């Protein structure tokens, strides 16, 4: 399995070991961390929700695309769900290749596509106020009435 949705803390060391390959001269990784701000607001924590089955399948598809499009050897991704705190790793992507150009390009392709296509949502908890669902398209939060309007 090249892509996984998990409720556990991500272990980058174990994941990177899956990229080992005697022909690999380059390894590019990306980690998305929970940061303390978004669009000027102080964030205290994040909650990630996913449709695990569809998210896993779409993540696998993206990894497969990267392996086809770029001259790379191995590629893996994992996204965590649940309640995360500042500094926690929410997503990890890693790619190994003979040369660095393809490793960087594939790694960036995977994270860009994951963020656009995989059914995962995040709700920000603010230091000074209620929470809000984040909208990847605008970066702004979606109105969250908490009840039908």
């Amino acid at each position: 399995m090249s892509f996984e949705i998990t409720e556990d803390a991500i272990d980058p060391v174990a994941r990177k070991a899956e990229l080992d390959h005697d022909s690999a001269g380059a390894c590019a990784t990306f980690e998305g961390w929970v940061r303390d701000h978004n669009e000027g607001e102080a964030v205290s924590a994040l909650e990630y929700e996913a449709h695990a089955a569809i998210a896993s399948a779409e993540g696998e598809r993206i990894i497969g695309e990267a392996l086809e499009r770029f001259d790379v050897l191995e590629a893996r991704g994992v996204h965590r769900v649940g309640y995360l705190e500042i500094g926690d790793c929410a997503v990890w992507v890693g790619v190994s290749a003979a040369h660095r150009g393809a490793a960087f390009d594939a790694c960036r392709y995977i994270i860009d596509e994951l963020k656009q296509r995989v059914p995962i949502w995040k709700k920000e908890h603010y230091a000074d106020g209620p929470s809000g669902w984040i909208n990847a398209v605008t970066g702004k939060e979606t109105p969250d009435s908490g009840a039908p309007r």
Partner: protein
Amino acid sequence: MNISVQYFAVFREQAGRDTEDLTTSAATAGELFAEISTRHGFADSVERCKVAINDELASWTTSLSDGDVVLFFPPVAGG
């Protein structure tokens, strides 16, 4: 036609529920979304949302069949 709908993230909160069983005359996923969107006041447009039918991503023009489970996804925001 009887359809079971599942809501995620902000849609779940705006609809006030996880799932909903309903009878509809909507022919496609897109028509069903328009119908529900009006009723629950969803703020997001169809272009930015996604739909899955019976646990597979589908397109808004996919025809609905009796007994389908339709999942409405607001704009994604992983990472």
